[in-house]
């Protein structure tokens, strides 16, 4: 009985051994086949590595750039109150600067005191918090002959969800 059991175990071990060895030979042969193909395509592989690294750099650089056009329009639309009544007395942007950290500075001009009050009321509107992280009135000036008023606003515009 013990002899038979030993014999069965030995036969089992023999089969496992043969199967593992067979698998090893099959894997080695597959590895050899792939390596031969890869050696033939070494030049393509080198080009691919170069391309992927460079296109990653390109994509990261473009992604880090902000969409100036869309930010410019958002600043313009948000800061200028809607034209009401006489269009010639409404506010207009004289100058606007914006950097890639979304910091901006804008000079806005109005020709009448009514338009000035309307502009200041608009700038203090709490709805602008939806557009700006930070908004401050930096300076205010009155020019005469011809008379007009200029206010300088600075701040940070909120990041736009829309990417380039």
């Amino acid at each position, binding site marked *: 009985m013990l002899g038979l059991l030993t014999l069965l175990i030995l036969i089992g*071990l023999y089969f*496992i*051994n043969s199967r*593992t*060895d067979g*698998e*090893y030979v099959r*894997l*080695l042969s*597959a*590895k050899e086949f*792939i*390596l031969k*193909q*890869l050696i033939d*395509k070494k030049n*393509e*592989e*080198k*080009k*691919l*590595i*170069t*391309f*992927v*690294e*460079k*296109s990653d*750099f*390109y994509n990261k*650089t*473009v992604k*880090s*750039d*902000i969409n*100036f*056009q869309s930010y*410019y329009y958002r600043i313009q639309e948000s800061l200028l109150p809607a034209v009401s009544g006489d269009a010639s007395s409404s506010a*207009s*942007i*004289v*100058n*606007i*600067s*914006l*950097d*890639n950290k979304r910091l901006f500075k804008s000079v806005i001009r109005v020709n009448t005191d009514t338009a000035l009050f309307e502009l200041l009321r608009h700038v203090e509107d709490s709805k602008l918090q939806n557009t700006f992280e930070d908004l401050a009135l930096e300076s205010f000036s009155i020019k005469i002959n011809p008379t007009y008023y200029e206010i300088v606003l600075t701040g940070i515009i909120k990041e736009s969800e829309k990417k*380039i």
Partner: protein
Amino acid sequence: MQINHFFGLDDRNKKLNQELTQLKNQQNLVINLKSNQLDQAIKTINTLVPNSEDYFSIITALETISSKTGFSISQYRISLADISKQSIPIEITGVGGTGSIVNFLNGYHFSGGRLITITSLEYSPSVTKLNLVLNFHNFKPTKTDIINVKFDQQEIDKFVAIGETLSKDQVNQENLIPGQFNYPVRGNPFGQ
């Protein structure tokens, strides 16, 4: 003793199997590659982002964007102190109608034939004057190992398409020059 030997064989096969999986990934990347397209994509990306800086192509890119968009660049300024290993900042001043400025801001990333990003912008609508600090980028790849390289065929298609757009634009520009300006055009600016 015999059982340890079996476990050893099993480990050996597992390691070989892992190695094989990695090689198969590598094989899939390289064997299925459309070689012609890769060459075109590399040519385009090397033009957009050269391995080392090329001042001549910067000036050409600015002139190309200027003529394409109608945004007239009147001044360039390169601050040597701000040049870094991978980018050159250039301050430019130009004028143009709202349309040309919008065109410029829509297509500056690659339409000049070089990768450009903007650091800052200052615009005066009443005089349609635009001051910009642009960055031109260069990059030299250093990787040599394909392991962990993630490849997407769409990336190759994207740069092939950019290359085709740039070539078409170049042909259009060359066709425009003799009609627009009344002076002889020399192919080689340094030739006789």
